[in-house]
């Protein structure tokens, strides 16, 4: 896992459709009309640029007040580095920035994707290279409205692109990738088969339907190369859809008409995505969009091409409209608007472009039978707080809840990838309100809809999948499948179940810039609760169990937890659906257990009494009273020590048993010793009638039971004492009462309260609560 959380950045500059027929390759359609130009219809890009520029200006000092051209900050940084090379070391590749400045500004610039630069870079290099590029570049861009359609694109004539982007048959269904300066052109070209058809005839029902099952439902998540298990379970639903399509298929007699009645026929099509990934992220970004978008989208087109000659038909339609437009001399933007309204393929490309470049889910429908949902799955969480020198990604859910920990069965590391099977101890937090999601699901129709609807009704963020399965009668595997579906499609997030007794804090990664919007949303959703800023302010203190913030009658509890849920949603959601996202980012509170307390490292520090490292057991006597202090000094005597691992460490020091469930023989003896000593202490406490723990209100009676419980659960608990598993997991996973578990844990010194003096001496755990 990369240590840096990268904000989503689709790097999408344009999409180009190239088809080749006997008449030669044609650039049929591209979107946006004027890529990389300022007035292009590129919401995201613009947003991005603006924000970058603005941030530069805000901080006045690094953007050096250059002219207002908008390229300032980038250029600045560049100089910045150039200067740096001179100043600090010789390490800087010197000709790097010089070249940049002279021939392709911003071109090789580290990782700032200066949009504008790129455009210029592209142009100038092109000129250098081939001379093809017109001098009217600038004119093209600025005077786009008036320009004749179709002349040039990204600084090159259309016919250059046509040749350039139509590869030979060797690239059939392979990754086609070409770089020009800093733009990457990536596609997945598809060629007609020798026999003139677009797919193998045999097994076509099954095969073909599978190919892009990617999601006509709009909620169907599976990718073919992913997660077998879920795919299996989604099978039934796929089948329904495929039946639908295949029956149509049979009726249409696929490629027959095309071959015969048309003088010309398509032999290849290539949907080329133009990307401008930052240099350092190039492989990741290209891979992301290739796997998730390019391949899937093209597969869907191929499927439809095979079935109804879709791509060729639409292409001819588009070319025809263009022809007319040329005669009428309509403007590029008008032409594009017309194409988008008249051709479903143009519209599909438009939709993919606008949604994907905004990091949203693209719901594309090619025609009434076929629709598909595409997305680059966003990063949903990170275990790292960003430091001052990292790129921040505010609002991203900060958690370690989905990391694999030693207590997980090493074989089944179920959580390793977010859309794989979700562990049964997780709960589902919807990122939008239930009614909205249900409505969307119903609207999308689809085979999963009823099951999803039912499940959403049963689901509670406070109950784990296993618990819900038990109460609702839905099988666990179905729940996991449905839940991962919702998670994948950004409608929900898997979290450790919320609980009032757990501790929540304001996430360090919380995006407070959304606070205002979130406050309003929160107010609307929970009118009876204190305002969101107040809640956050209250959660800003020393971490305490959530329940302690709201004096709770039971009635309130429910509500408050829900409120919490809201918070959680906010915090983390990366902006799922947009309404959610509003609130979502804002507040992140969820520090929940997962985070906050989590990992307690309850490591055991074993201590031991006696002395020598190994012989210690013998000298128990002295140890006794200062028994196990995992820690500390006061026991000063020799006991504490045991540094089991290093014989040379002096006995005065303590050490931890990091992996109690895989303790070495010596460590095991220490563990036994600890247990024995604990029992003794308990016993004596009892005799004295002293309740050392202040929290033992109900205590005395329970104290008696405690000893037995301790013995009984010690072996169970011990595997969680490894520094990676949150103590909050124990009650959930072992199906024990929280209060009971905490009694034992407190006894072991893992208390949430600063332990009292008595505890200190007996504490055998070091616990830490991290964000």
């Amino acid at each position: 896992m990369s240590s840096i959380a990268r904000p989503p950045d689709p790097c999408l500059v344009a999409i180009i459709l190239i088809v080749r027929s006997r008449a030669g390759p044609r650039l049929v359609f591209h979107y946006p009309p004027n890529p990389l130009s300022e007035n292009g219809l590129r919401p995201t890009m613009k947003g991005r640029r603006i924000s970058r520029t603005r941030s530069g200006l805000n901080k006045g000092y690094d953007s050096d007040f250059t002219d207002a051209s908008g390229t300032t900050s980038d250029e600045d940084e560049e100089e910045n580095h150039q200067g740096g090379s001179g100043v600090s070391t010789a390490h800087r590749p010197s000709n790097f920035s010089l070249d940049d400045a002279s021939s392709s500004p911003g071109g090789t610039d580290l990782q700032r994707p200066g949009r504008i630069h790129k455009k210029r870079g592209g142009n100038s290099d092109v000129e250098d290279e081939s001379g093809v590029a017109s001098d009217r570049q600038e004119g093209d861009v600025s005077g786009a409205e008036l320009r004749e359609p179709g002349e040039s694109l990204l600084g090159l004539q259309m016919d250059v692109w046509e040749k350039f982007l139509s590869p030979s048959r060797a690239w059939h269904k392979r990754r086609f990738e070409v770089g020009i300066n800093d733009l990457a052109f990536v596609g997945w070209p598809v060629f007609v088969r020798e026999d003139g058809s677009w797919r193998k005839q045999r097994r076509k029902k099954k095969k073909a339907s599978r190919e892009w099952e990617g999601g006509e439902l709009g909620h169907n998540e599976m990718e073919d190369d992913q997660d077998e298990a879920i795919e299996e379970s989604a099978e039934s639903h796929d089948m329904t859809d495929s039946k639908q399509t295949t029956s149509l298929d049979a009726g249409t007699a696929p490629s027959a008409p095309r071959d015969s009645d048309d003088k010309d026929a398509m032999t290849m099509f290539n949907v080329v995505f133009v990307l401008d990934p930052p240099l350092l992220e190039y492989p990741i970004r290209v891979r992301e969009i290739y796997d998730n978008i390019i391949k899937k989208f093209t597969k869907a087109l191929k499927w439809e091409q095979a079935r109804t000659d879709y791509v060729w038909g639409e292409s001819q339609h588009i070319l025809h409209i263009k022809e007319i437009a040329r005669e009428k001399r309509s403007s590029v933007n008008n032409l594009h608007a017309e194409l988008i309204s008249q051709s479903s393929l143009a519209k599909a490309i438009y939709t993919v472009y606008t949604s994907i470049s905004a990091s949203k889910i693209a719901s594309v429908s090619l025609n009434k039978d076929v629709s598909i949902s595409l997305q680059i799955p966003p990063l949903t969480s990170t275990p790292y707080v960003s430091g001052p020198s990292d790129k921040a990604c505010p609002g991203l859910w900060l958690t370690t809840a989905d990391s694999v920990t030693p207590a997980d069965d090493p074989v089944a590391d179920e959580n390793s990838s977010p859309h794989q099977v979700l562990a049964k101890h997780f709960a589902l937090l919807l990122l939008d309100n239930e009614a909205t999601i249900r409505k969307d699901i119903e609207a999308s129709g689809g085979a999963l809809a009823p099951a999803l609807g039912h499940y959403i009704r049963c689901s509670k963020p406070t109950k784990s999948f296993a618990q819900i399965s038990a109460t609702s009668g839905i099988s666990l595997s179905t729940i996991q499948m449905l839940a991962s579906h919702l998670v994948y499609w950004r409608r929900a997030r898997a979290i450790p179940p919320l609980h009032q007794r757990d501790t929540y804090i304001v996430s360090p990664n919380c995006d407070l810039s959304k606070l205002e919007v979130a406050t309003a949303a929160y107010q609307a959703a929970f009118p009876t609760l204190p305002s969101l800023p107040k809640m956050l302010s209250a959660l800003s203190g020393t971490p305490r169990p959530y329940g302690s913030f709201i004096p709770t009658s039971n009635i309130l509890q429910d509500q408050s937890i829900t409120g919490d849920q809201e918070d959680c949603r906010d915090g983390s959601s990366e902006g799922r659906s947009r309404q959610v996202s509003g609130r979502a980012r804002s507040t992140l509170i969820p520090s929940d257990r997962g985070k906050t307390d989590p990992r307690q490292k309850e490591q055991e520090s074993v201590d031991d009494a006696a002395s020598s490292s190994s012989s210690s057991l013998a000298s128990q006597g002295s140890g006794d009273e200062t028994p196990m202090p995992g820690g500390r000094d006061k026991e000063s005597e020799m006991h504490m020590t045991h540094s089991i691992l290093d014989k040379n460490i002096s006995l005065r020091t303590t050490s931890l048993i990091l992996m109690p469930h895989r303790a070495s023989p010596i460590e095991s003896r220490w563990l036994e010793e600890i247990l024995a000593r604990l029992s003794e202490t308990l016993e004596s406490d009892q005799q004295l009638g002293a309740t050392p723990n202040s929290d033992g209100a109900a205590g005395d009676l329970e104290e008696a039971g405690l000893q037995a419980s301790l013995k009984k659960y010690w072996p169970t608990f011990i595997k969680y004492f490894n520094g990676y598993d949150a103590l909050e997991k124990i009650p959930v996973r072992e199906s024990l009462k929280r209060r009971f578990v905490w009694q034992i844990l407190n006894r072991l010194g893992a208390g949430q309260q600063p332990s009292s003096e008595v505890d200190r001496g007996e504490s055998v755990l070091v616990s830490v609560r991290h964000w």
Partner: protein
Amino acid sequence: MKSQRYDRNEFIFNFCLVLSEEEDFSTYKSVVQKLADLLRGLEEQSGFLSRDHSRSGEGKLFPIYPAPPPVKAWQVPLFTVRYQKFMDENWDLTMQRIVPHINGVNSIRIISILADTDFSLTCRAIRHLLYYGCLFLLDIFSFSAIYAPTAQFSSTIASDEAMQQECARYVNTTFAPSTIPNTAPPLSPSRPDLSPMHTNPPRFDPHDVWPPISDPSPEDTESPAVVDGIGIVELYASLKQGQSLKQWYLQHSRELAYIDIRRFITFGIIKGFLYRVHKYAYATGLPAPVLKSTPTHTPLPGSTATTPHTRSSSRARTTVTPNTPSTASSVGDEAPISASRSRSVDSGSDEEGEEEVVDDRTLAKYLDGLHCFDQICTELEISEKELTERLKRFPGEVLILHR
């Protein structure tokens, strides 16, 4: 290249490097460009390519690092290397002037003041150093600051005995680094090509690195108690949200007696297992609650919220020395702290005389929850205590958020 000397009046060449797919090609881009330029030049001069001579050239790959984000006035740089080793008179003037003031204590703003350099140039210089991994950015250290463990805690300090020892060497004031490099502890993630790190020479017996505990209290004097590796872990684990360093110090003063607290915190930040919990103020736009205990805080019913902490802790900044006898007494490099601090305090107290040096309009701009206290204090040139006091007089409800 067009020229009469070619048969067809033109010569085209394309020099290709073949790399495997997994290879990160970014570093080769400059090589390719350089080669193209070089070959073009050679061809122009002597027909190098068209005549097929052979010659050799040299090239070197330079790794490309991500550009560091803009630096902020309230960030505190700390060298991860000894700049003296590679600084020479050819360095940029600004750089030469600021470098001596980079000590892990001075914020960038303070550095530019002390060095008398232009602020934006200072920022640039700092970014250069950051780019090459020579610096680490910290926050402004003060006893009112709050630190808490991150998720990396278990995988680093808690389980790594070598790190515990390294920490002990770094923070143990009995080693009183009289000469004390203000460098950071060896940084694991530092760039390989530039880390002639200092490490304290292994002159310490591994058993002796542990800082002693202050009071040779009761019984056993025979073996002086020390803060051992686990002790260090526990100290770090006891840092938490909502608790200022001062409060933490008071609870653990015995163990901390021979520990340089600033270095202790710095160590955790650098190793990534601690983070600073920043405070933000948010004006809700509602009228200030009247008779509540504190105007700045409106705890929920039944909650104690954070008021007490913020309040009491805000004092710390101006009274560092009294609070930390140990650090003051022990550490050689403590001097800069007091120096810089007194400076900021001075400027603060100057202003304190007149009421409302900062008018409400100015202040209001900072109360959107996006400006941390460090930033507000730095930009308004007031101390945190003054800020807290000032917030109480702000017309309207102001909530303090920590994150």
